[in-house]
């Protein structure tokens, strides 16, 4: 077992795509023992620029990812892509369709694309995404592009794993700008108005500029959030967008923010790991029956949540 992990890591580090693909599967499925591999991979990671791409369905994220990848390839970078799509809450299955737009990249050995389903586990998805990024980073990919639909808390969490967050809007989708999630706005580093070949793109850009001017903390920041207009159809704006991303990376490095963000990330990662452990212990310490008894006592007002929590903390050895 241990040896198999070692072998997999060695193959991954030497650029074997199948080893990376298998590592992602192990991470996604939380296979026991994978953490030891990740600990090893951590030592080889830390070089990649991690770029988050979010926005409503249909705004052109996957198309943009394809074009960005092509431009980064022209600049002789090896690119990895993680495309996240929602798991159906009814069946537990998922239709992962982002790859349709990216198939033209499939013949390029310098590109690695992986589709991931959200699998309904909030914290789980962002943790898994972070670990997949770690594996791709260790395998030498830089940048790593993460595409998600910017609808829920999980997406905001995933975007926190990115160094540069790009929010994509498209003209003609109604009050798209109004609908931007507050959480996403707070972490946006760049705005893209896609489909500038369509009418209304300038209007959408103007609305975004207005929105930004209303956010004083973003206005005064050292980084002025650019609004880049692109057309995948005509291949316009893509090199400007890559330039803007490179500028942002440079800015993060020079200002020390890159390290600060990375450290904040790692701290929350450690906290999440500990929390997960605590919950696991709690699950082992208290049987479903005992839970039921405690909950009944609390709802009958014989006991209260605070003293119960206190008692459980003691039993878990969290307080003396």
């Amino acid at each position: 077992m241990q040896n198999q992990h070692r072998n997999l890591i060695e193959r991954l580090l030497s650029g074997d795509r199948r080893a990376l693909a298998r590592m992602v599967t192990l991470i996604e499925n939380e296979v026991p023992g994978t953490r030891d591999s990740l600990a090893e991979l951590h030592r080889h990671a830390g070089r990649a620029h991690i770029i988050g791409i979010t926005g409503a369905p249909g705004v052109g994220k996957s198309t943009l990812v394809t074009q960005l990848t092509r431009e980064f390839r022209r600049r002789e970078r090896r690119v990895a892509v993680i495309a996240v799509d929602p798991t159906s809450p009814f069946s537990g299955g998922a239709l992962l369709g982002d790859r349709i737009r990216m198939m033209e990249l499939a013949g390029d050995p310098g590109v690695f694309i992986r589709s991931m389903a959200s699998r309904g586990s909030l914290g789980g998805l962002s943790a898994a995404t972070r670990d997949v990024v770690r594996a791709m980073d260790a395998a030498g990919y830089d940048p790593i592009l993460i595409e998600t639909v910017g609808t829920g808390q999980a997406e905001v969490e995933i975007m926190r794993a990115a160094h540069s967050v790009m929010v994509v809007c498209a003209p003609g989708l109604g009050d798209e700008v109004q609908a931007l999630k507050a959480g996403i706005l707070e972490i946006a580093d760049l705005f893209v108005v896609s489909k500038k070949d369509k009418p209304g793109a300038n209007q959408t850009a103007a609305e975004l500029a207005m929105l930004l001017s209303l956010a004083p903390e973003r206005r005064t920041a050292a980084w002025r959030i650019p609004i880049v207009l692109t057309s995948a159809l005509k291949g316009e704006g893509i090199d400007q967008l890559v330039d803007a991303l490179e500028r942002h990376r440079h800015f993060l490095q020079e200002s020390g923010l890159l390290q600060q963000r990375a450290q904040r990330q790692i701290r929350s990662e450690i906290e999440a790991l500990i929390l997960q452990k605590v919950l696991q212990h709690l699950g082992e310490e208290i049987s479903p029956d005992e839970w039921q008894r405690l909950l009944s006592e609390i709802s009958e007002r014989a006991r209260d949540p605070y003293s119960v929590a206190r008692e459980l903390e003691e039993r878990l050895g969290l307080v003396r």
Partner: protein
Amino acid sequence: MATTRPIRVLVAKPGLDGHDRGAKVIARALRDAGMEVIYTGIRQTPEMIVEAAIQEDVDAILLSILSGAHMALFPRIMELLKQNGVTDVLVAAGGILPDEDIPAIKAMGIKGCFGPGTPIEQIIQFVRENIHPERLQVEV
């Protein structure tokens, strides 16, 4: 060690074949059966399909073809899989596959051949039962 997890499948349309209804029907049905389905879209070369299957680490590759070019495309796909050491992935095919070609297709290592009118339940069951069992153990 054993972990249960969703089955991951690639639904692919090789060659210059625009008939994508069947592929889409299958993709949605497998999703509704709880699988994670990566759909490639139409006009895929064998190279693209095999590369996508590797990167996505899928349990099954489902080839849908109605153009008549299967005897040119399938051998290439099977050869590329072998070249890349992919030996534990189920490969199945469907669409317009004349009876006289089926023995040759099966001899290539392609497991099922499903023509027009195949009930979707039969396809779901076939995929579930023919995934290499060790893959679902998700070990190294």
